[in-house]
């Protein structure tokens, strides 16, 4: 009646980087209009080096095997797919399956990306890693990987976040990382990224900036996405095995966008599957105190990429708000951005899900200037929820 034995899935953790998909950016990291590199020239050499080393690692069996081995024996991949029948009942009879990235070592999907980048750091011969963190999940994952591989680790964290997430600060310190409370700006995640970028510009020779989400300058959005593609690759196989068909909907919360693109990616070419991203609603989108960058943001360049931002009429970043420290970020990654419907439907500032489209994002014409307002058939939705998101 029930099948038993270990979780069976054919995908390896490294498959997302080993096998490029049909949804690649152009060679300078543009997903349509979005992405790219909006960073000081001082960082370009490091980004180029990272791109080269990453591209080489993707084809290197030894690297891929090491990544697979760590994800199997250290992270605990594959992560299970859990039926949530009581939630489904509560939701009116849906069959809801949870992809259990929370069961990974360090407690979130973040480790998928972190281990990959930490191994690349070693390949580049760098001995020092810096990272930003909001909730502390990425910081903990990074501190953990650095402890594993013997790398020096400095984590920048907004002072506000160090207070509300004191437990994760303690974990990082226990793991040997230096946690630097960032006192500038809004003293949250975005300022931690600013500070990490400043450190990077200064120490780029010996330092890798281990960015924690599918944002930032090229190659980060693509690389982070690919390191997380295993989420969707596994989930797709698991749901087919368990249910015998593809799901109607795949949903994910969107902070920077790494977990969302990680699971969505495997379903982009499945026309019957709706992809729904949930953004932090904060006090409600209409109040302006929220983190719904895709729903209520506009295109802009922040932290190295052109993407959707919460910004005022002058292009100054607006502070985001969420009950979840981990989703409290005023932008999200360009690779999620590329599938957004250009244009502003009338629901833009109402609490309704916002429509996205799933356009092929590869090698779209560049410099196509501002978004047109042509509405596109919806297959991806972006919703906001007052209290969505991880609690830790």
């Amino acid at each position, binding site marked *: 009646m029930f099948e038993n034995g270990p979780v069976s899935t054919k995908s390896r953790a490294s498959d997302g980087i080993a096998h490029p998909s049909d949804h690649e950016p152009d060679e*300078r990291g543009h997903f349509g209009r979005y992405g790219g590199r909006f960073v000081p*020239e*001082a960082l*370009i050499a490091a980004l180029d080096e990272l791109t080269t080393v990453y591209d080489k690692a993707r084809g290197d069996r030894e690297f891929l095997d090491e990544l697979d081995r760590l994800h199997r024996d250290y992270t605990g991949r594959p992560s299970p797919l859990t039926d949530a029948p009581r939630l489904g009942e509560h939701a009116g009879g849906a069959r809801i399956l949870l992809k259990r990235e929370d069961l990974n070592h360090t407690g979130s999907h973040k480790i998928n990306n972190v281990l990959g980048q930490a191994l690349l750091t070693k390949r580049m011969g760098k001995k020092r890693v810096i990272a930003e963190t909001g909730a502390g999940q990425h910081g903990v994952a990074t501190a953990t990987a650095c402890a594993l591989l013997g790398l020096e680790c400095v984590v920048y964290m907004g002072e506000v976040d160090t207070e509300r997430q004191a437990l994760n600060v303690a974990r990082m310190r226990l793991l040997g990382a230096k946690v630097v409370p960032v006192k500038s700006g809004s003293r949250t995640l975005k300022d931690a990224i600013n500070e990490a970028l400043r450190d990077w510009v*200064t120490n780029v020779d010996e330092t890798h900036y281990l960015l924690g989400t599918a944002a930032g300058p090229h190659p980060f959005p693509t690389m982070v996405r690919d390191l997380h593609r295993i989420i969707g690759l596994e989930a797709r196989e698991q749901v087919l095995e368990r249910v015998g068909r593809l799901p109607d909907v795949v949903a994910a919360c969107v902070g920077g966008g790494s977990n969302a693109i990680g699971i969505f990616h495997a379903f982009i070419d499945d026309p019957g599957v709706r992809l729904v991203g949930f953004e932090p609603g904060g006090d409600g989108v209409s109040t302006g105190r929220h983190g719904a960058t895709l729903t209520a943001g*506009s*295109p802009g360049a922040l932290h*190295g990429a052109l993407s959707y931002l919460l910004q005022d009429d*002058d292009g100054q*970043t607006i502070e985001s708000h969420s009950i979840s420290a981990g989703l409290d970020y005023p932008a999200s990654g360009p690779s999620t951005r590329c599938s957004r419907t250009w244009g502003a439907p009338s629901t833009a500032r109402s609490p309704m899900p916002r429509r996205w489209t799933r356009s092929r994002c590869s090698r779209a014409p560049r410099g196509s200037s501002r978004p047109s307002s042509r509405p596109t058939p919806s297959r991806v939705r972006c919703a906001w929820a007052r209290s969505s998101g991880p609690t830790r």
Partner: protein
Amino acid sequence: MSGVQQIFEGARAEGRGALVGYLPAGYPTVDGSVELLSAMVEGGCDLLEVGIPYSDPVMDGPTIQAAADTALRAGFRLRDVLSVVERVSAAGGRAVVMTYYNPVLRYGVDAFARDLAAAGGLGVITPDLIPDEADEWLAASDAHGLDRIFLVAPSSTEERIATTAAATRGFLYATSTMGVTGARDAVATAAPGLVARCRAHTALPIGVGLGVRSADQAAEVAGFADGVIVGSAFVTAAETGGAGGVRALAAELAGGVRRAPAPA
């Protein structure tokens, strides 16, 4: 020849380096910044670099961050930079704007270029925009006759120096050190080498910035570069000594750039 380049050539003709002084528009207030910038001109700055205060200034150290915060808290709006440029230009100053890219993008790249040119601005320094991403800005700056000053760094490859210089108009901005803005005790040892590497790829004047705060340092930089760019030190001078302090620092630095012979 572009407006900015002429300033450098003028200094060179006098056998000295050009002095470029930075202060954020709107610091400590809009009127206050006009006064400070005017004092810079009076003290002997050849070119003003008028900064746009921005919420996320990743290339700036604490001194300039704090000044930008002060300006934003005092109510600085993006359009204020145009009036600041207009007023200092009217008073005889020659100004470029230094800005992170997002405010420009938000304003509209072409609209910004048009309005800045109309206000008398000569060009824009873009610390987080590389030529690779600058198609729209290249077009707009061409359309409105603005100089565009890109940056090179000690980590830039020969190839990138060449392409960056090719896209640049006015002067090429060489960051003398890896790092963010902030006055330093010593000018980084990487600077002369970087400038020498740039000379191999371009005839543009080369300005060196990041860390200069004294006449001696200015003299040292003017010994191998065409212009000396000073930022944080002016903010500190404004903080502690107001317009008088800024005027005095400009005068001191102007003395510095005159001390050493300009490179051939």
